[in-house]
């Protein structure tokens, strides 16, 4: 004779289909062993309920303590905050790069302007140098061309006059007392003054 222990288990759980329940009831009326199994299962179930109902539940912490220990919200907040800070930093960095690029071009422009100014100044300096050289040349030529060779000696009284001549006119440069001349020099009627006598003081002046 087939026993219905498995079906009894399902019946106790309210999970046995209706048609099978009919078969089970029919069987239980005939089978004392299965009826005893049902009774045992019912008693055990009641016992289990009682065990868990009477269980002394003492929890270690109250919810407040658990909440205080709860790392989640903090963790999530940390990640959230990190995310926001990273986003903000990225945006700021983007702006920084943008402005830096702008500033760089401005600096480059300034540098180019200064470079141009430097070239201009160099050119001007070269021009000035050339002009100065030209002037020096002109000055040299001037002294070459001028007739500064003749010093005429005239001794109206007891003095010598040093005279420069230029294009036929006379100009007294200095007058020397005849008596102050060393012996022998009184015989000199004239002396030649070269251009170097004029250039040297001019150069020292420069």
């Amino acid at each position: 004779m087939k026993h219905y222990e498995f079906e009894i288990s399902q019946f106790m759980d309210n999970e046995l289909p209706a048609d099978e329940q009919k078969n089970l009831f029919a069987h239980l009326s005939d089978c004392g062993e299965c009826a005893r199994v049902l009774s045992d299962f019912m008693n055990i179930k009641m016992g289990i309920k009682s065990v868990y109902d009477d269980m002394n539940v003492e929890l270690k912490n109250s919810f407040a303590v658990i909440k205080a220990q709860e790392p989640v919200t903090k963790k999530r907040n940390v990640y959230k905050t990190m995310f926001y800070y990273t986003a903000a930093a990225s945006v700021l960095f983007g702006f920084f790069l943008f402005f830096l690029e702008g500033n760089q071009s401005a600096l480059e422009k300034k540098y180019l302007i200064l470079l141009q100014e430097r070239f201009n100044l160099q050119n001007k300096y070269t021009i000035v140098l050339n002009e100065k050289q030209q002037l020096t040349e002109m000055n040299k030529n001037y002294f070459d061309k001028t007739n500064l060779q003749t010093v005429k000696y005239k001794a109206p009284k007891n003095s010598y006059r040093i005279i420069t001549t230029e294009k036929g006119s006379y100009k007294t440069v200095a007058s020397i007392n005849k008596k102050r001349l060393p012996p022998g020099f009184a015989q000199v009627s004239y002396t030649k003054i070269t251009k170097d006598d004029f250039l040297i003081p001019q150069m020292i002046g420069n």
Partner: protein
Amino acid sequence: MNKINLTYEELSLPKLYEKFSPDIFKYSFSILKHYEEAQDAVQEVFVKYAESEHSFKKECSQKTWLLIIARSYCYNKIKSKSFNSERIEDDAFEPSYTIDYETKMTIRDALLQLSEEHNELIYLKDYSGYSYKEISEITKLSVENVKIKLFRARMQLKKYLIDEL
């Protein structure tokens, strides 16, 4: 039998704790069979719930979700080496109930003799009153498997409590 609230009702964490912490404790105890470990489990479960609250897809009730977390925690705990090495006989659990007829073994002792899985299924069905489908959701077993394992657990209990008289 406990009334099962199948309609979804969202509760805040303090209210969840207040309402379900004893059930989580008992469920954890049914698996761990250790009073203090079950106490720790309750705390860990609610912390983990708070951690994973954002990933809760509301496909099941909050209590089911808590039980799933508790189950995961308890089985991980059992697998850990420290749990098995530190496990000692727990005298803190003192049931007041003994079966009517004289037995050498109380129901509490018999429950402790059951495997973790059988004990868990017995708790979910006979005490919490979950349906096979709900138990299947919590334990990730098929409905057929739940049915068979529950039957075996009952037979095992019957064997401990009645047949060995």
